[in-house]
């Protein structure tokens, strides 16, 4: 019994710091937010009565909600596999150490040093009509962020680019961590390189892949920066609005805190639900030690 208490105390010491901040600065405000979603909240943020499910009914009934949900899921559905494919390919390409390795590894990793807001400004300028370099290089004349057909694609390019550096680095270090005798064994067995990649290397780095998969999914569901910084209040923003950008613009900017609460809870439940499902799947498929 004493042993057990001691051990519990130890667990507590390791976990208490992070839990303290998580509870005070994330969950306590989030609980207030949940209360808001069932309340009449005025423009000053004061609760003025009970609203039942009225905020939910109103939010889900809005014309732009299905759009925002669709865009959010679409971004996640494209962003996650694209990031995985790109970073795994880059890592396989860079896996073997060569004379120039440090150079191109640095190049692949460099997007990591640019923050989201800086990247937004750079991309906005690169993709702008008439002065943008992208149109110039490809001989086009389109406003990427200014037309409904291309705005979402341009935002996706930006978010995928943002993920490359960090995720590549993780993939690379995982690949290089595969004990060399395993790779040697496949050589001796005469397994084709393609088969080696899919049958040996990828399964062996599955914990990293799983991590990149989960974090990218969550980040994709939470995407709002390009929509707010680049698209802003432009006429084409309806082509890119996401749950999070809708929450910011129709919730915060318009001081509708009930709507903001409903949207944030919706995104939270969807994201958490899917993440838990992935963890269940992980138990079966991901190989650790």
């Amino acid at each position, binding site marked *: 019994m004493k042993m057990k208490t001691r051990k519990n105390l130890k667990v507590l010491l390791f976990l208490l710091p992070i839990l303290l901040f998580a509870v005070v600065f994330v969950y306590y405000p989030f609980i207030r937010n949940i209360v808001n979603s069932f309340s009449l909240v005025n423009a000053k943020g004061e609760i003025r009565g009970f609203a039942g499910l009225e905020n939910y009914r109103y939010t889900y009934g809005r*014309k732009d909600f299905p759009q925002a949900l669709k865009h959010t899921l679409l971004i996640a559905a494209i962003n996650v596999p694209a990031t995985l494919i790109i970073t795994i390919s880059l890592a396989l390409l860079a896996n073997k150490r060569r004379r120039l390795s440090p150079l191109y590894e640095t190049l692949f990793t460099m997007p990591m040093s640019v923050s989201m807001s800086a990247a937004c400004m750079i991309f906005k300028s690169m993709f702008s009509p008439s002065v943008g370099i992208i149109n110039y290089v490809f001989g086009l004349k389109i406003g990427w962020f200014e037309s409904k057909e291309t705005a979402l694609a341009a935002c996706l390019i930006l978010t995928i680019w943002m993920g490359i550096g960090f995720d590549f680095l993780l993939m690379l270090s995982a690949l290089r961590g595969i004990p060399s005798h395993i790779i040697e064994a496949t050589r001796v067995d005469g397994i084709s390189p393609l088969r080696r990649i899919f049958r040996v290397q990828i399964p062996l780095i599955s914990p990293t892949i799983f991590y990149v998969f989960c974090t990218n999914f969550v980040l994709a569901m939470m995407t709002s920066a390009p929509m707010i910084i680049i698209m802003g209040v432009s006429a084409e923003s309806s082509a890119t609005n996401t749950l999070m950008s809708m929450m910011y613009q129709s919730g915060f900017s*318009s001081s*509708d805190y009930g709507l903001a609460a409903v949207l944030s809870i919706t995104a939270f439940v969807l994201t958490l639900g899917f993440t838990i499902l992935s963890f269940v799947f992980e138990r079966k498929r991901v190989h650790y030690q």
Partner: protein
Amino acid sequence: MKKLLFVICVVLVSAAMLFASGAPEQKKEETKVALGSAPVTITFWHCASDDAGVLMDKYIKEFNETNKYQITVNAIYQGQYSDATTLMKTILSAENYSELPDIMQLDATGKVAFFDSGKAFTIDDAEAYFGQSIRGDYLEGALGNWEYSGSQLGLPFATSTTVTYYNKDLLAKAGWDHCPDTFADIIKLSADMKAAGISAAAYGTVPNSPTLANWIGQLGSYIVNYKNGSEASATKLECIDNGALKTFLTEWKAMYDAGALVNQSLSTNQFIAGEVAVFTNSSANVSNILSKVNGAFEVGAGTYLRVNDSASYGATVSGSCLVMFDSGDSLKKAATWEFIKYMTGEGVQVDFAIGTGYTPAYKSASDNAAYKEFLAATPQFAVAADQLAKTPASMRSITIGPSVDFYYAIQNEVSDMLSKNLAVDDVVKSMGDNLQALLDNYHRTNP
């Protein structure tokens, strides 16, 4: 273990709750102290960036050095307008009033939150408090933009209107020597340009709440009741039954159907690159456009496009104003009052106009020698000043709670109408329903 964790969670949550329940606010006694009898520092929040930021610093330095009342203005840049508004709303929701400034620069997005704050020291309040009437010194059109729910919230600082810019060289090739005046003119111009083999578009923009309020205003109506919210918080749409919205949409669609309109928010760079002949944009953009075009073609400027021949001239104002908060300290209030008059007065307004391209909202500025000289040198600037002076006093920009949503809804409904070729009547109905639902929801949450 379970118990232990439970206890910890309870402790944490209750500790957090403790922070939430604050001490009641104490009321301060207000005693009147004569201005100048003691040094006083007031806080000023502004959003002036780039060139405007440099000028702002200059005015504040000048005021601090020259004022006779020992006033020191502590100026703080608070990010872009939307950030400053977020900051103000956050402080208000925490009721942490001691963090509020004495005076603040505000754009349209912050009007409602400021009015609702309960700490607003409006111009009506100030005029009564100091026993002075000063609003007669400002152009009515500019003042009107900062009126909400029957209160004059603040005084105009950076004032601009939308004007029509045109590429004189392109128009000359199509045989035009004057600025298009109405939507019908744009259609004619487009036909002439095509006949002359010019591939550039005639005109491009997407209507949003400020521009729609302007065009509906030209037709003698308002988008929402109570004069677009300036007399009381708006509850109903007003442009549906009187047909104003329908007239506007019909004319707008005619432009699009004739191939004269690109329904996209064009950037200044596209106008400069010669991709579009006619461009409507803020009058404060004149100097920027002139310096970027740099003589590549001649830039003309005219009054804002009118919906049709029977529409009146005039343009609603945009930009920013200065508003005051009630600090409960008479000395600070008096100092703030001096400062706001200085910032919106003739001297600063003329200098700011020359430096940036904004239009002075102080009446006597139009007779100022330096300003007259400036207008004579660059006549493109004069358009906005003339237009502002001509704007009917009844014309108002729109102020509503769900302002961002209105902005989107208008843009989207118009875009859909054009791209999906919807009937005007259907769009009037769906836009009406959509906007009314937004207003209703605002009043549901803010009874």
